């Protein structure tokens, strides 16, 4: 017994050390030069925590040891393969999937812990009681009210994270069975609310009756409801709102881990899970602010399910231009600001963009990239793609510095961005985008917009930018047009 206490104390101290490494690692990840090292510091923390747990426990059952090693080998192999094979353009899906695995792991831990504590016989008696044969009411070993409440919450949050992430993955991957458009149906919100309330109530019920044999059934119901909730919550959200969803699911995956920590009374999980929960929440709020929408509006607003609602009625004609003409204007420019959006990611045009920027820089022009916080499908999406193409991070400008540069720029080159450049957000109170901070590309001397067609963007909102006098539309695939532009420029 004494020996076990010593082991527990040493383990907890090691977890504390790992938590300190995580905090340092995260801190280092907030600056580009130290970020890679920060990630490794945190990985060392994880290695220490895992290895310590492993060796502290190997004294136990030898049979389970083999299974543990096999499970880790399988997980490690899959994780490594996914991480090394994934294309940078598929990063949003990858992050969504990883969130999902975190969520399901916490759900499984909570349920495994319950199954472990409620012993085999007890589990049978659960079933008997449900069937109307009450089992003798004895206290379950280790199953207290608070730990059962945490078990319920870990299961709930973990389950929502899992299926929510899978749906987000489907939307981002563009699979046929999950539409990119928000799916909303009559009664969706009441169903979501009911599921949420009932599952939280079940957590309370479990906590109130720690000795009850029916808890196993309640837990099973919570699992089912959580999985359904995740699907219902995310299916109603459109592709363009995915940055918020992914950041939120990231936060959930942390919270689920923290709840699993309450179940096991393990500080490593509690500290680490809450760190991640907090960081995900910060990102979520940054994304919401960048769209001038509340979290509730993003989750339940169903932006994009209605077509053209409230957009300004644009009259007049868009001016069409060709890559040749655009190249001539670019040749005459001194400062060019490139505004990338999801269209650049879809066309995989980041390398072509970098080449074009190289041509411009060769001619002594200043080139910046103006990046809106919600451009693309996840926080920082554009930055990752441009970094892959070899663009240095110090020419990637945030919203405010971009808007400081745009009025002094000769050309703003919009590549596959739409809603984040819509001037209606500044001026038209009727527009659904009104109040959203945008990139003021219309203040540049000339705006070139590379776009497939004049069709309104994802949200179905018409963009008056395309009809301004200083805007020229170049229609076509982003990669193709940008490559042509670079070739034309080279020819001048």
């Amino acid at each position, binding site marked *: 017994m004494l020996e076990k206490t010593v082991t527990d104390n040493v383990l907890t101290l090691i977890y504390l050390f790992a938590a300190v490494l995580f905090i340092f690692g*995260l801190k280092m990840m907030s600056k580009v030069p130290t970020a890679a090292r920060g990630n490794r510091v945190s990985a060392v923390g994880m290695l220490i925590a895992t290895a310590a*747990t492993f060796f502290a426990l190997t004294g136990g059952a030898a049979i389970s040891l083999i299974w543990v090693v096999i499970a880790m080998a399988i997980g490690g192999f899959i994780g490594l393969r996914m991480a090394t094979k994934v294309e940078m353009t598929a990063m949003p899906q990858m992050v969504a999937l990883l969130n999902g695995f975190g969520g399901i792991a916490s759900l*499984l831990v909570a349920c*495994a812990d319950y199954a472990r504590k409620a*012993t085999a016989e007890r589990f049978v008696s659960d079933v008997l009681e449900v069937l109307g044969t009450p089992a003798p009411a004895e206290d379950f070993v280790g199953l207290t009210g608070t730990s059962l409440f945490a078990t319920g919450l870990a299961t709930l949050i973990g389950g929502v994270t899992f299926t929510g992430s899978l749906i987000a993955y489907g939307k981002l991957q563009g699979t046929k069975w999950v539409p990119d458009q928000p799916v909303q149906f009559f009664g969706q919100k009441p169903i979501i609310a009911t599921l949420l309330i009932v599952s939280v109530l079940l957590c309370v019920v479990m906590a109130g009756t720690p000795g009850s044999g029916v808890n196993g059934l309640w837990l099973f119901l919570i699992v089912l409801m959580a999985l359904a909730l995740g699907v219902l919550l995310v299916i109603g959200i459109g592709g363009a709102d995915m940055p918020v969803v992914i950041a939120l699911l990231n936060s959930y995956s942390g919270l689920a881990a923290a709840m699993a920590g309450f179940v096991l009374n*393990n500080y490593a999980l509690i500290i680490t899970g809450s760190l*991640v929960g*907090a960081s995900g929440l910060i990102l979520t709020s940054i994304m919401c602010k960048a769209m001038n929408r509340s979290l509730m509006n993003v989750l339940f607003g169903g932006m994009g399910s209605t077509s053209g609602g409230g957009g300004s009625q644009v009259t007049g004609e868009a001016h069409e231009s060709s890559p040749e003409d655009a190249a001539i204007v670019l040749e005459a420019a001194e400062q060019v600001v490139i505004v990338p959006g999801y269209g650049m990611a879809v066309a995989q045009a980041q390398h072509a963009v970098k080449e074009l920027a190289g041509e411009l820089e060769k001619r002594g022009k200043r080139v910046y990239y103006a990046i809106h916080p919600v451009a693309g499908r996840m926080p920082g999406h554009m930055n990752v793609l441009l970094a892959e193409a070899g663009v240095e991070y110090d020419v*990637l400008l945030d919203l405010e510095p971009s808007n400081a540069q745009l009025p002094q720029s000769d050309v703003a080159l919009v590549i596959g961005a739409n809603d984040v450049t819509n001037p209606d957000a500044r001026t038209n109170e009727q527009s659904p985008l009104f109040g959203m901070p945008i990139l003021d590309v219309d203040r540049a001397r000339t705006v070139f917009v590379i776009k497939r067609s004049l069709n309104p963007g994802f949200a179905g909102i018409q963009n008056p930018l395309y009809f301004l006098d200083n805007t020229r539309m170049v229609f076509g695939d982003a990669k193709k047009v940008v490559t042509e532009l670079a070739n034309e420029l080279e020819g001048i």
Partner: protein
Amino acid sequence: MDPFITALVVFVLAVFIGFEVITKVPSTLHTPLMSGSNAISGITLVGALLCSFADSFFYVGVILGFLAIVAATINVVGGYVVTDRMLKMFLKDKK
């Protein structure tokens, strides 16, 4: 004191530390921060290990524990490796 209360104290304080540490992250690093912190949330692996080494052998618990270890290891390994890949891209020009 109920261990739950101690745990709650730790939880609340850790949330505040999280807010303090993460604010002011430049948007360039938002994606790596997300995947990196996601890898950290794979700490559930420790919980999964603790569950799987249980003395009593009951199939449901063992199977769930096994699956938990697989999922958490994917989370940890995948998260750290992919984050490292991304962050190396950010630095490659400086070398």
